[in-house]
């Protein structure tokens, strides 16, 4: 195999995952939180594809494709929720979603 070893790809995947999770943890706009989630999933996808390459099996790639579909689904529903909330005049700020607490 040419280029860096799989471990390098996996490290990039780890960084993506970490950056994504940081995004979820520090951003208040639900839109950006959704984007951060996408980054996390992409990190996982990269790991899956890297491992797929490592073992020479197609399972990982299939998995990655399925994850893409799932990610898309999440985004659809998430955006739907955000739109619905915006139309109901709710704040688009996860820190202000605190009517349910205690």
């Amino acid at each position, binding site marked *: 195999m040419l280029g860096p070893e799989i471990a390098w790809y996996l490290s990039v995947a780890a960084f993506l995952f970490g950056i994504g*999770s940081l995004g*979820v*943890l*520090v951003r*208040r706009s639900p839109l950006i939180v959704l984007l951060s989630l996408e980054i996390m999933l992409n990190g996982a996808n990269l790991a899956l594809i890297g491992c797929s390459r490592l073992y020479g099996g197609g399972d990982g790639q299939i998995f990655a494709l399925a994850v893409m579909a799932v990610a898309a689904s999440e985004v659809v529903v998430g955006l739907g929720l955000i739109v619905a909330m915006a139309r109901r005049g709710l704040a688009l700020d*996860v*820190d202000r*979603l*605190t*009517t*349910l*607490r*205690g």
Partner: protein
Amino acid sequence: MITAAWIALAAPLAAAVAITLAGTSISRRGAGYLATGAVGASFVAAAVAFVAMWGRDAEERAVLSTGWTWLSAGDFSVGVTLLIDPLSAMEMLIVSGVGALIVGYSLGYMDGEREERRFFAYMALFVFSMLLLVMTGNFLLLLVGWGLVGLSSYLLIGFWHERPTAVAAAKKAFVMNAVGDATMALALFLLIWKTGTLDFGTAFARVDDLSPTVQTLIALGLLGGAVAKSAQLPLHTWLPDAMEGPTPVSALIHAATMVTAGVYLVVRAHAVFEAAPEVQALTAWLGAATLLLAGLVALVQTNVKRVIAYSTMSQIGYMFLAAGIGAYASSMFHLMTHAFFKALLFLAAGIVIHALAGEEDMRRMGGLRRLLPRTWWAFLIGALALSGLPPFAGFFSKDSILAATWASGGDGLALYAIALAGVFLTALYTFRMVFIVWGGEPSAFVREHVHVPGRDLVGISMAIAVGTLAVLAVVGGWVQWAILYTPVETWLHPVVEDLVRPTVAEDVITSVLASLLSLAGIWLAWAMYSAKRVRVPEAPALRSLLERKFWFDEAYDAVFYRPAAALARVWTRWVEEPLIGGSIAGVALGTRELGRGVAAAQTGFLRTYVLAIAAGAALLFLVYLAAR
């Protein structure tokens, strides 16, 4: 014979139950008649049993009869057993006989009382309990009778339940008796574990094989019960207070029968006491001490019933003394004569009190001799019998105790001296009372109440009782004169053998000495309280000691009641409420606060929730890495 015994036992109980259940469907009089009849029937049955026993050989007089098993567990078993033998037969006669007379007397005395039915039910209950006590053949049922007489005593002392003093006196009597019951119960436990039985015969037979310590402890426990019931030192303080009860009660329970149960116990359980000579000696000394102390206190009492009560304590002291040195027959003999003359004194005093509308303070009496002449004679007979002058009953019984004391050797002489001093004191306080109550001129108070002189015996029932007892107080002692003949001792011989047998010389000398002392006492009383030739000594310290009854009440209050009450208060205030009750509240509150804290972490901030997951994942990851 045994059937008669069962009838004698059952009749009063049946009357008590019947009166209680009948409620208002029986008249007050009816209740009285029923109770009197039942106790009378009891006496008749007892007499029948006595006569039947008389007809038997000495060795065959004791009969055991078990009705049913009362209590059992494992190998231990106790039946409702009657032991009818000369000793119990004698007691049965005294109890039911004097009982019948006094219950009859009550018909007149309690006439018009609102709760007369209750009174007679209690009286019947008492007679039943007392009979059970003296008739039973084992210690457990003895303890039952012991407790039940205490209960009846409580009920009757507190009969006038709207008087706080009466209620307090009743409670005091019950509690002090419960102390005695408790020590007795402990002795019984010891008996159970060491002999395996509570039946008199078997237990007495096995007592000899026990170790001296155990023997002593058993005897001590029994003595505790006896002392409490018979108002001996140191558990004597309830008896004077018990005079709050109606006078017939004082006569029956607190003079003639119940209080002498201790003596009966010592005689009945003589095998135990003989096995523990130290306890025997203690019994004698307690008796001696009580007779002296009670005699002294009686000198300064102003309540007529209390004087008689102290004299009762004192006389029972003689009986204990006799029982302690082993003069059982004399002891029982004195018990019998004392029942007669002391009941007589109380009933006579009762007539006085009745006549004076319930007044019991001697200082407000006086000059009653002419106003109540027949009662005066009865009272005088009782007083003479109490003082032990021949030919009255007390002379015969008391002198044989004195002689036996002399004869007993060892400490006997010291005891003898005390007993003789007691004779003097007895005569002194008795006649102090006689002169104050009957002598002199009627006071204004007396005149106000007794309008028609000479009409003293209002009811036939009271007359019969007092009359009969007056006769008995004279002739009752003639049954035995130790110098010449000893039928009482012979009669009791199958059950209990005397340990001391005074010589004729001792008997005669003692009789003379005692009579002289007695006369001296009477003279001094006459001199001080009637003729006023001798000043009553002032001696304020001594006086207050006597009036305070040697500070026993105060000491008990300080040593037992107050600490217990304080402990109860402290526990309620500082343990029960804050700790026991509050601890759970504290725990609940603490848990709730914890919960509040946990819930507060649930801020509603989505990012916090995610953070929890991320942090959890990171932590778990780290732990796994470190562990692998």
